[in-house]
């Protein structure tokens, strides 16, 4: 049963500054509200505690996708629909575009934001693995200033992150890659069905092959750990290595050691382990298939 509507105060500041001042006035009192596709679900099912909400939805400072020579910067309010429609993003960040395309379905994509996806900190979210694999940095702002954080280090535990109560996420910056190099982007979401599906296991991985060996490998998983998982062992197992059955086995074993899945309402620990390994295996094949 839904939460008690009259106990939900909400206001919409006219500018980012006003929002930050409000947040700073009583840190922790106000909860940011973006597209609402996470918060309103909690509200409807009675799981959202009453309180004060600050709607960011119409703040222009948090919108827009900017492309410069060395980075693509996306405002926190960038919706999945906007990600999908942006040609440079689709071309250079195909894993982020894939995550957007496969998140929820059209109507969710028109409202759900990247910032909300990050800050909701679900271990099953779909854009975080792509952001980890793309070496994203995020900017957190508060009335007293702003700071950039490497996204890979942002989530520190289940729903725990490196955020002060009066901070909001302003934007996400992704470095552009050398177009002269050939990168293999490997993204796969394994959900409960094709769309409108929460991920049971997901992977975003990127790398290139130079002189027959894997270089600059990044591997991230979702839904197999308390947070989005940067699979450091898997990355290390691949970096500098040449293709062969031994490498596939090593990658599988490293992934097995990286992930710590659980049984839950959507899947089993055994399934997640097995499929995560299979996905790592597929990535290794895809990575080297390009050069073959």
């Amino acid at each position, binding site marked *: 049963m839904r939460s008690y509507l009259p106990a939900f105060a909400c206001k919409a500041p006219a500018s980012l500054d006003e929002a930050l001042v409000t947040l700073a006035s009583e840190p922790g009192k106000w909860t940011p509200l973006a597209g609402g596709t996470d918060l309103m679900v909690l509200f409807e099912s009675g799981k959202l505690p009453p309180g004060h909400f600050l709607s960011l939805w119409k703040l222009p400072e948090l919108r827009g996708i900017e492309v410069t020579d060395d980075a693509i910067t996306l405002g926190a309010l960038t919706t999945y629909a906007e990600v999908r429609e942006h040609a440079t993003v689709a071309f250079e960040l195909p894993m982020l575009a894939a995550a957007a395309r496969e998140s929820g379905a059209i109507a969710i994509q028109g409202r759900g934001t990247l910032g909300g996806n990050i800050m909701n900190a679900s271990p099953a979210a779909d854009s975080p693995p792509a952001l980890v694999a793309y070496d994203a940095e995020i900017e957190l702002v508060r009335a007293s200033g702003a700071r950039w954080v490497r996204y890979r280090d942002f989530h520190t535990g289940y729903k725990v992150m490196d955020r002060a109560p009066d901070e909001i996420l302003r934007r996400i910056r992704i470095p552009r890659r050398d177009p002269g190099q050939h990168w293999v982007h490997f993204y796969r979401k394994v959900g409960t069905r094709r769309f409108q599906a929460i991920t049971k296991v997901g992977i975003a991985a990127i790398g290139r092959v130079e002189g027959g060996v894997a270089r600059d490998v990044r591997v991230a998983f979702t839904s197999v750990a308390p947070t989005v998982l940067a699979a450091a062992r898997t990355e290390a197992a691949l970096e500098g290595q040449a293709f062969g059955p031994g490498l596939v086995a090593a990658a599988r074993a490293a992934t097995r050691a990286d992930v710590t899945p659980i049984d839950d309402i959507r899947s089993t620990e055994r399934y997640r382990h*097995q499929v995560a390994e299979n996905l790592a295996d597929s990535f290794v094949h895809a990575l080297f298939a390009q050069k073959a």
Partner: protein
Amino acid sequence: MGRTVGTSAPRKEGVDKVTGAARYVDDLVMDGMIHGVTVRSRVAHGRITGIRFDPGFPWDEIVVVTAADIPGRNMVTMIEEDQPFLAADLIKHPEEPVVLLAHADRDLVIEAAKHVHIEVEELPAIFSIDDGLAADVRLFKDDNVLKRFLIEKGDVDAAFAEPGLVVVEGEYETGAQEQLYLEAMGMIAVAAPGKGVTVWGSLQCPYYVHKALKPLFGLGDGEVRVIQAVTGGGFGGKEEYPSLIAGHAALLSWKAGGVPVKVIYDRAEDMVATTKRHPSRTRIRTAVKPDGELVAMDVVFDIDGGAYATLSAVVLSRGAIHAAGPYRCPNSRIHARAVATNHPPHGAFRGFGAPQSCFAYERHMERVAEAVGLSSVAIRRKNLLGPGDLTATSQVVEDQIDFPALLDQALEASDFEAKRAAFAKHNADPASHTRKGIGVATFYHGGGFTGSGEVHLASVVGVEALRGGRARVLAASTEIGQGTNTIFSQIASDALGVPYEWVEVAAPDTGRVPNSGPTVASRTCMVVGKLVQDAAGAVVTTLRKAGLLGEEHTPEQLAAAVDSYLERFGELRTFSQYKPPAGIVWDDKTYRGAAYAAYGWAAYVAEVEVDLVTYEPHLRGFWAVQDIGTVINPLLAAGQVEGGVTQAIGWALFEEVRWREGRMINNQLTNYIIPTAADVPPIHVAFAPVPFAHGPSGAKGVGELPMDGPAPAIVNAIEDALGIDVRRVPALPEVVMEAVLAKRAAAGEVQHV
């Protein structure tokens, strides 16, 4: 006048539905209306020791109803009388209704419900068929068996003792399934002493609700009125539970002095509290000759009925009658039990037990085929029923069906044999990341109530002739999306000889329409449709007898005749009542004889491709060929088949009800997974009509048949793809993975998990 039967006449209420003008119960607003909510038990089994209301709420402003407020009998009238409207003392399942609240401020009353605490002394609870049968915890009589049937033919024990037979055994399971009509349930009631009870709601069977409300308030027939609002799907789910909600809304209104009370369930409440498809377990033992001819079948079919008897007996009956499949087998024994547990009562859902037993026998046929070295197709072809053969209830098949030809039609349409061969090649390729398979199922489904059920119902339909030759069909059969309004109008307009547009169907309202029986069991077209035809025909006969109409007539002549008749006599209404076709004999004691007046017959084919990285079975195509008699409206009939097939795809591959202590814990659409537009394969529907002499223009039923065959066809295809023997649905990727890994382990391959 051109016939409209056989054409795809447009849906009667279509314009209202595509414009958003159609009024469902939650769209209705009445003056002074207040909102009701239900407070439910958290535990599965226990004794109520008290009800506590948190301080700090304006309780004096809130209407509060408990069992003590019930003016009449606290018992839902169904088959057995064992389910209360509100638990008074004993709680037998999670989410059992205990307290009702109502207030004009909906937010307030929803919040108030969270502050009512039902104090309970817990009792041990049971949640499985085996624990039910063990009867250490007694829920129903001595043995927890809500209902039992034994259906025997020939001499099974003697047959198994014959030498030279191959014996095949198997055990199969199916899970609960949520109907998931997209409109959650709801009711509005106005009730007050001296004024009677009126309810409007989302429901399938107005007269069931009517029957249940009378004793609740101690009122007579004329004092209770039940009106169906436009209803957003039912699939059986709105057959019995609406009686409870109607009772609840009416009790609140009664206590509140007659103000309208609206009770609307949200999705989570609808899923957690109301009925689902019965989980089942079937054990089959078969004796077969080395050439594949079936000699004997011994079936034990058990279903989990949940905490109260409700409709379990009839679900069990249908499941049991179909449990030996559409096969010629001289000796069969079907022992069926519905077992009580502390789950919320399971109930009606499209197919009514038959999909459960069909999954078992159609998976089992693969084992039989394997045992005698025949193909999936050959084993079926050899044993399919035909005219003159005897079913498991010893009913002589009267339908002039050519079942092997129907099977061939499905095989040809799907290119079955060629695909089996091509897929075997694909699957042998080590570089491939998928495995492909194709599977078939043959099955049948009886139309109408079982055995003497229709005789007991004795349904009545009326047709009222109106000025200008317009006509109105009077029936309690409800439009729940399946097209009742449209096919009744088609049948009546043909019988009257007037255009389709001239006929309308009265909104089901027990104050205005006769009891044409419940809208269930694939009976609406075949049984009630026939009554519509007869009642409409009686209008013509009456006009002829009155000398106003000749042997042949145009619509205009009929219009003129009706007008003069009305002038002379005031009104023209004709009624028709069910009479069983001659020669239909059924024995309720031995469960022998003509179980159904007619059957639908079908052969379905599923094609799958399983991803070896994720173990997801993706459906690539589905072919559904069936005989449902004359097809009254091809567009609607195909829509029924496609919808049924898709529900069955959900049951086969996605839909798992997850229980904790008897309570559904995935009662949200985010984690109870039904197929979306992106998950269904192209579904190819074909009809092979064999007209049925006693149906309207030769029609039989279509509603339930398409739910039966898809699950086994799909799992048979998965077996063809991977060589794994999955014996339960849903065949989730997790289940497929375990079977694949087990098979690899058995083959000595290295294993990690």
